[in-house]
């Protein structure tokens, strides 16, 4: 897959509130972060892309071809979505069975599915939990199990809805490595985030959504330099950027190491 486009898309859950009204947005090989206030429509957007919701107007296209005729089953081979709440995704009582479910569902044989599931669990460092019940695990582990289930399906595009929620430093580093690996493999990667520092560190492009509209879209560094627009959308700049400003520097730093190098030079 090279591109995923949304053209003039409209959607509402109920007639009185329009979530999207003529949304145009496209995704390409650049790793992309979507940020925005609670209720902005981020999860709704990715559910539309995954075919779980249907737009009332507009088209969704993969490599220029409309996906309107693809069934949910066909689409699930191409687009993987890791849910915001792992409890919405997990329903087996055994970790290995859970991670194998997706691969089996898209037609892999049992042995292929098991191989894919074990590999995916290894990527999130949870291969030792194969025999556990997901509900006996901590929420952060359950979130990684849900992530592994989607990785195991080996889809052309992977969408993560708030993957870093509840993760510690090591968990975030794992997710960062997975995103880089998917990108190197030529897959499309899209990630919804509330963690501005993580977005700034790990993504080439950042999109800011506000009440169903895109108010900023560009290179991550440029987007995070727009303090006023971000604040209007209930967001903030990454901590590194905030620290640099507090010290009176106007350059826009988005990596800790950059700021340290700069301060050392100016010391």
């Amino acid at each position, binding site marked *: 897959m090279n591109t995923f486009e949304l053209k003039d898309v409209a959607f509402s859950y109920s007639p009185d509130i329009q979530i999207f009204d003529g949304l145009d947005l496209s995704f390409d090989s650049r790793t992309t972060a979507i940020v925005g*206030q609670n209720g902005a429509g981020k999860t709704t957007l990715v559910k539309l892309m995954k075919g779980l919701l249907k737009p009332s107007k507009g088209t969704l296209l993969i490599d220029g071809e409309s996906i309107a005729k693809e069934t949910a089953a066909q689409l699930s081979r191409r687009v993987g979505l890791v849910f915001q709440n792992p*409890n919405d995704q997990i329903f087996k009582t055994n970790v290995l069975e859970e991670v194998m479910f997706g691969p089996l569902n898209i037609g892999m044989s049992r042995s292929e599915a098991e191989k894919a599931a074990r590999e995916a669990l290894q990527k999130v460092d949870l291969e030792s939990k194969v025999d556990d019940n997901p509900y006996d695990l901590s929420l952060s582990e359950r979130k990684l199990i849900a992530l592994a289930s989607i990785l195991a399906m080996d889809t052309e595009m992977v969408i993560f809805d708030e993957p870093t929620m*509840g993760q510690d430093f*090591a968990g975030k580093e794992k997710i960062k490595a997975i995103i880089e690996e998917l990108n190197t493999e030529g897959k499309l990667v899209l990630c919804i985030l*509330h963690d501005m520092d993580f977005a700034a560190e790990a993504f080439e492009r950042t999109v800011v959504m506000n009440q169903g509209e895109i108010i900023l879209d560009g290179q991550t560094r440029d987007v995070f330099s727009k303090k006023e627009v971000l604040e209007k959308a209930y967001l903030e700049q990454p901590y590194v950027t905030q620290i640099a400003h507090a010290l009176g520097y106007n350059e826009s730093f988005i990596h800790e190491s950059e*700021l*340290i190098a700069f301060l050392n030079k100016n010391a």
Partner: protein
Amino acid sequence: MSIIEVENLKYRYPDLTDLVLDDLSFSVEKGECLGIVGENTAGKSTLCYALAGLIPHFYKGAYGGKVTVNGLVVREHEIAEIVENIGLVFENPFSQMTGAKKTVYEEVAFGLENLGLDRKEMHRRIEQYLKLLDVFGLKDKNPFDLSGGQMQRVAIASVLAMEPDVLILDEPTSQLDPQGSREVFEVIEQLTEKGMTIILVEHKMEQIAQYADRVLLLHQGRQVALDTPEKIFSRPDLKGFGVTPPVVTNISKALNVRYPDSELFPVTIEAFKRLEEAK
């Protein structure tokens, strides 16, 4: 007597072989905000359950030691009695929803009904706390038709509305947008000023540094340290416990900006600036 006293607390979930809480002893004073930090699976949520009485009343397993909150020995009192004094905001807001109520308004009312408040006071509190969390406009919506962050706001409001003496927050802002998250921490600060005691589990170390009076560092169920944010975040061995300090402390370490004649580094931007300017 302190408002929370934990003495040699040990706990293991049924069927597990290792202790998840391994000999914890500490106390918390009224009006204090105690931060709890530690890597994934350190036992933070489990400790929250033990403080709120879900362990041992709901989660069985092996239990040892004693937890006393607000004068009640948790193990010896029914959950119904404990929840009148201790509020717990779950790490997954989904777990907080009763599943039995059709609107956000009724969801918040549910907990209050058991407190025996009159109608007027109930209404006043529901309105006050839904507005505080910026979700009053959603009061007629089904709780399960909310976005993740909206549901987390409702979960926090429903516990705050009970006005408990002790409030336990397990990663309460994990799904909130940055400004919503900041607002919640400001509310926490106001509540401690009014005498509420708060236990706060967080991965956002910037917030722990700013709002916690003391920090408990947990690792594999054990209590590594209980100290001020400066002392905890200045530890050279912190990374070994899977915890990273606030960004500003990392930068201070790299630039060797520290408090005069001490091994301590600043943990807030304000403190960092003051030390830089004094150099």
